[in-house]
Every structure is written in C-alpha cells, then in structure tokens.
C-alpha cells in the first residue's frame, strides 16, 4: 500500500559552508586554550598540596636526626622531642574541645530550634563575627585581659580542687596557664563547630520532628528522638573540624603561654607544655640552621596529624551527605 520514495539527504555535504568551518575552528582554539587554563589551575592546586609535602620533607628531613644538643634540654632525639610537643598540642586541643563542645551544641540548637526567628539570624551573624576575629587578637586578649581577670578563679580552683592533679601544683602568678590557653582555643573553635552542628540540625526532616511532636514529645524529647539521631555523624564531623583548627592554632597558645616541650597535666602552673605550632612561632628566629630544620620537621608532623583529623572529618561528612541525599 505505502510507497516509499527515495528522498534527497537533508544535510548536504558537511562543511560545505566555509563560514561554519572557519568559525568552528576559531571557536575550538579559544575553547581549548580556556579549558586547558582551567585544567592547569586545577592541577596547580594538586601540585601545590604535593609541594607543601615535598618541600617540608626535603627541608625538614635533616631535622629528624640532628645532633642531640639541638633537641636539648627537652629531649635527646627527634622522636621524644616531637612526642612531647604532640602531647602539648593534643592536651590543649582536647581541653579546648571538652570546653567548646557543649556550648557549640547548645548554640547550634539555639539557632536551629529554640530562638525566635528574629533572634536566630542576628545570633548566627554574631557567631560569624566571632569566627572573623584574627587569632592574634584572641591571643592578645587572652594574655592581657582574660588571664589576669581569671587569676581569682584559678586561685579558687587550686585551693578547693587542688587535690585533683589537674588543678594542683604551684599556681601561676600571671594567670597565663594551660587552662586559659584552652579556653581561648575553645572560643576560637566554637564558630566552626557551631556552624556545622547548626546546619545538620536544621536539615532534620520536618516529617520526623512532627512524628515526635505528634506523639506528645516535649521540645527536648523531640530533639532527642528526631534531631540527634539524624545529626549524629554531622555533629562528630563538626567537632573533628573544630579539633583540626585547634590543633593548628598558633598565636593564641604562643601568646598566652610561655611554654617548653614537656609532659605535664597540671593546668594552673607557669610551667606549661608547648604545642608544635607555638614552639615553631617561639623559635623560628633561631640563627641555628639545624634548629630551623627541626622546626620544619615538627611542622611536617603537625601537617600529617591535622591532615588525618580533617580527612576523617570530611569522610564522615561525605558519608552522612550520601545517606541523606
């Protein structure tokens, strides 16, 4: 019934129009230049990170086994020198996190679930300001204002809770102690931990919150039933990122404490363990080239350490994002 006729091809010979061809070629060159520039930028960032690693290793390698006198009086070899510094870093950061975590969760809950909208937005803005204050100013404030002001509190702690080893020992006259350094660090990590907790709290599905409320849960019970289980991994990630910041923070510790590499748990004395970062800041001007290489080597240790902490935090965030995608 149907008759099929031979039809002429719709498109004639490709490229028959010279205008199309030349413009396409020009376009292709422009595109190629642009896309390779973009690719180069991406690669530069890859290389930059690798370079950080390579240069720290190449410059710091000699620091791993310098003469014992370089590490003295704190230690006799790099391993125990770095271990002591790492102890100070971990102690100050963990203390800071212990102080900051409850406040971060409380603040995040305030913004996400407790505050009236009129207040929540300004509070979130103020937290951003807290994040924007340069660390050197925190250090100045901690050393010149907070430390002397808290001397009374520290004396009280020492007198009444001195039987706890943390608060024992000869109390510092200036107030510039590990406790104050940890408090300043806590204030500094508060914004990032709060921001991430707030975000995961706000992402709790309305459906789950209503399920809890519909059962007759109070606000707190709703948070326990619906918000916390949903936000658990996000909260952990927020804390880890805060920890990462505390580990790498230099000025606050360097300005508040006069410290040396050592292991002590006494928080209120004037004899304080140095952190890797504050130790670098305190000694970078040393004329001795060997000391500089040792400092770079400790910097490498710090880099690897924070890298691991941040990596774990990011992995947790990525996993929880996938779960709720």
């Amino acid at each position, binding site marked *: 019934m149907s008759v099929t006729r031979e039809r002429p091809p719709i498109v004639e010979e490709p490229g028959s129009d010279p205008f199309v061809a030349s413009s396409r070629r020009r376009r292709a060159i422009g595109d190629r230049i642009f896309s390779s520039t973009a690719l180069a930028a991406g690669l530069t960032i890859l290389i930059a990170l690798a370079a950080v690693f390579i240069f720290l290793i190449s410059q710091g390698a000699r620091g791993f086994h310098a003469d014992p006198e370089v590490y003295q009086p704190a230690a006799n070899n790099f391993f125990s020198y770095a271990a002591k510094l790492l102890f100070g870093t971990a102690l100050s950061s963990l203390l800071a996190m212990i102080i900051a975590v409850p406040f971060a969760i409380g603040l995040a809950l305030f913004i996400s679930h407790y505050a009236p909208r009129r207040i929540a937005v300004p509070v979130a803005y103020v937290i951003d300001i807290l994040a924007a204050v340069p660390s050197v100013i925190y250090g100045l404030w901690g050393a010149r204002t907070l430390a002397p002001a808290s001397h009374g509190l520290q004396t009280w702690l020492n007198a009444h809770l001195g039987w706890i080893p943390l608060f024992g020992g000869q109390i510092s006259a200036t107030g510039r102690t590990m406790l104050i350094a940890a408090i300043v660090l806590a204030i500094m990590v508060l914004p990032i931990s709060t921001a991430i907790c707030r975000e995961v709290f706000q992402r709790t599905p309305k459906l789950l919150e209503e*399920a809890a409320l519909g059962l007759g849960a109070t606000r707190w019970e709703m948070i326990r039933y619906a918000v916390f289980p949903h936000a658990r991994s996000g909260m952990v990630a927020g804390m880890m990122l805060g920890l990462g910041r505390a580990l790498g923070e230099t000025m606050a510790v360097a300005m508040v404490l006069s410290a040396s590499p050592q292991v002590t748990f006494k928080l209120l004395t004037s004899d304080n363990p140095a952190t890797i970062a504050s130790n670098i800041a305190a000694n970078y001007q040393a004329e001795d080239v060997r000391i500089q290489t040792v400092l770079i080597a400790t910097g490498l240790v710090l880099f690897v350490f924070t890298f691991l902490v941040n990596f774990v935090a990011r992995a947790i965030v990525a996993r929880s994002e996938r779960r709720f995608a």
Partner: protein
Amino acid sequence: MAQAIEVSDLDIYYGDFLAVQGVSMAIRPRSVTAFIGPSGCGKSTFLRTLNRMHEVIPGAKVRGTVTIGGQDIYASAVDPVAVRRKIGMVFQRPNPFPTMSIYDNVLAGARLNSRRLSRSEADTIVERSLSGANLWNEVKDRLGKPGMGLSGGQQQRLCIARAIAVSPEVLLMDEPCSALDPISTSAIEDLIHELKKDYTIVIVTHNMQQAARVSDETGFFNLKAAGEPGHLVEFDATEQMFTKPSLPETEAYISGRFG
C-alpha cells in the same frame, strides 16, 4: 477512650494571615469523619488544630474553641504536649524514626510517658498495637529490624501502631494514603474500618472515593478565591453528602466540575 470533638467558630491564623475562617462542627465518637476539598482550602490546617500541631509553625494561632471530651484544649491551663499525647496523629508520608527498630518505634510514645516499662508490659503494648494496626503477622519475626526496611504501606501501618500504642482518645490522619500504592491504600482503609470500633477517627483526604468508602460523616472545605480564607461549606452524613448534598457548591465539587 474515644471522645467527641466540638468545634465552634474557629479562626486559624498564620501570623496575620487568616487561613481558615469560622469553622463549627461536632464530631461523633467512634466514627470516621472525613474532610474533603480542593488543595489549599485549609482542611489539613484545620486537622492540625485539633491536636495543636499547627502551633509548631511560628506565628500560627487560633481563635475560637475546640472541645474534646468536654474540655477546651485551648484553655490557658492546658499543655499542648498533653493534648498531643491524647490525640494521635498519622501523617501524609510514613515517618518511622529511622534509627529505631520496629519494636522501639511502636514504643516511642509509650516510653515518653512512663520511665520504667517492664519487658513484659512493653511486649504486650507492642503486640497489641501491631495487631491493632494489622501488622503483627507481617513483622513479628523481625521486630528488631529497623522500621525503614518495611514497605511504604507497612511503614504507614507502623506509624498507626505507634499512634495507637499510647491509647489515644482520637486519631487524626492527614492524607494517610497519599504516598501509597492502591493495595497498601486498601489495607489502610480496612484498618480504619476496624479502628472505628475503639477510636474517634478524623481523616483528611483528597480522594473523594476514599472519603465515601471509609467515612460516616464528611465535611467539605472550600475557598471563595485564592488568598481568601478557607471555610467549611457543608458537614453532613457521608451518604447524604455524596447522594444529595444540600448546597450546589458541594455538588459541583463532588460531581467533579471543579477542584
């Protein structure tokens, strides 16, 4: 169990916006009452005022009275938490707590109220509620598994079990079948029929056939125009409503001329 609800002259606001105006009705105990109407007419909003759930949205407030079992739930001495505990609610989409097992999901409400629940008491509540929701036989071998592993219809029945586990006076259902396939829907409808024996059930549905199938009485909500508040047009026995409604507006909607 199973209380009557009386609503008189209820206005519902979101901030300054009047969403629903002047609703009065009496809902019989141990019956199914359905609300129908075009989307945006305020039927879900109205349902949520019956257990004070709409207050969750900041700025929402009501004027008028809602009396359940002879007590005004909006009286100043009444705690909204206590109201919600006595009036169960099932939502549009199944929402079991994702981190809890089936067993714990059923007990979620009961655990809020009594701190110490002996194992045997808990087992009793779980079996009774799941049986009540026609789910016991399907899940009795995997009570420890997460509730999210069930099918949509099973999840919704789990939510119903969770709602009846605290022995509420009234059960509110906000389009409980809108996210479900026809087979699950018919399972839920059968369940509503059975639950009627023990509970006062109020259901919002956008599906008129469903309203006709499950309900004893039907309320029709409508709005005059977009931006205007919704209002209750007609409220009557379901049979009456679907065979010979007294208002032409209702008839137009039911016979599908609009909405």
